[in-house]
């Protein structure tokens, strides 16, 4: 039974631009992994075709089926987590084993307020 997890320090899920995120990537696998990678990425959801961008990748050097590795990532200035009428921008951390045979995803929020930007919160005068 394979088990992957990402633990972020203080179980924090909301971050401000430029903030450093620290945590631990853990895995319990049946076999020895060829590669284990932690990606910080954003992707879009909504009416449009999905766009994805991996912002940072950390490759763990490991040959142990069970292991845990600390990580530290400084978040970029943007894009902010966003929820609109046509599109949403979602940030996530993903732990990937052997190029996708196993993976775990943890969504996070990136914005100055700690909450995703929504159209309703903006001072729109449409």
């Amino acid at each position, binding site marked *: 039974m394979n088990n992957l997890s990402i633990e972020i320090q203080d179980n924090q899920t909301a971050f401000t631009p430029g903030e450093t995120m620290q945590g631990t990537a853990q895995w319990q696998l049946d076999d020895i992994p060829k590669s284990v990678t932690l990606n910080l990425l954003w992707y*879009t959801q*909504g009416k449009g075709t999905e*766009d994805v*961008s991996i912002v940072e990748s950390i490759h763990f050097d490991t040959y142990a089926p069970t292991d845990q590795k600390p990580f530290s990532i400084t978040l970029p200035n943007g*894009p902010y987590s966003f929820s609109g*009428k*046509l599109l949403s921008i979602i940030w996530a951390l993903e732990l990937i084993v052997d190029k996708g045979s196993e993976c775990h995803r943890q969504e996070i929020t990136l914005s100055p307020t700690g909450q995703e930007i929504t159209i309703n919160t903006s*001072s729109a*005068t449409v």
Partner: protein
Amino acid sequence: MKSKTKSHSGYTGSKLDLTGFHLMFLLFSLALTSIIGLSFIKIFKTYFWEKTHCTILSCKIDHAYKTESSYGIDISYTYTFNGQSYTSDIYQHNYQGSSDYTEIKQIVDQIINNTQVNCYVNPECPQEAYLTRESLWRDGSAILVCQIFTAIGVGGIVFTWRKKNPKKNESNKPKPKSALVTKWYMKPLKISSQHQDFSLNNKRPDSIILKSDSSAIKNLLGGIFATLFWNGIVSVFLSLVLDSFEKGEPNWVLTIFIIPFVLVGLYLILVTFYHFLKLFNARPILTLTPGVTPLGTTTELSWTFRGWMKFIRHLTITLSAREEATYDQGSSSKTDKHTFYEMELFSTNITSEMTAGKVKCAIPQDCMHSFQAKHNKIIWSINVKGNIKLWPNISSKFPFTVLPTDPSDDQ
């Protein structure tokens, strides 16, 4: 975190719409191909008729051939086929005559002066004979042009139904998270190309001249190209319709079929003319100072116009932000737009105030900054609208980049 899923129930409906649209092309093409094809086959068959010596009984110019303004050939000739003698007065199958007198005279003189004249006799019906055979070129090329419509019709229907609905597949079968991640992971180069620079430490220009997202000349050239292409094709069939009316044997099936295509052609001409008139509109020149605008800051917008301002009745300048989402629909892609922020910066009816001016432009703090990926965008723009009576209005959008909030401002 909440999950966000959007409804795509209109997908099948749009497929049917597209199929109907392409089916129109296909039916139009099939009908035309059938009509022209029958004529082509008839001409083609004459190339297997037997060449037989004939004797000209009479040959002269017909001064009122089919219409009063055209000349034809009034001919009579006799020939012998399988031991039997026949007479024919047909110069050529479906001969239309000519408005050029010299051309007809040359043909008549050639026939009279030629001692060895041959005609082409239908072996299955020897009473039927032509002095010359019609060229296959005209009907052949018309059939080939028809196949453009066939290709559009068939290709459109095939692409519409061959393309899978990815959203539908996603919702129908539960997919392990890894599948989605694998897709991203296996295309690292494509993904990295979508990076957008949100760095606030880059060089900040003092001011920036904004560029309009549309060009009057490009729109005009596009209109001219579309008009020439569409009307060029339609004109081939229009000439067949006009020919049929000239002969006094109107082809009503073809006439009714071609009406919507002619109307589209006329619409394209009007659109092109509209873009031509827009070329003479005054062009706004906008400058933002400073040239970099993070959320929550205020920038100064100044404007001038190049061109004739006299007839502008009302000028409005607005700040707006919109979402744009591009997705595949059938064989083409479609972009949906939604404006989520709009603020009027300036509005006047006074001409002297329109020509040049400055206004403060505050970018809201709690809004979304500019974002540009391959299929999804958040675009901030300054929109200039000028109403002109009895003339195309000025309507230009000037996109500019709004950056995320500068974290150093909080310190």
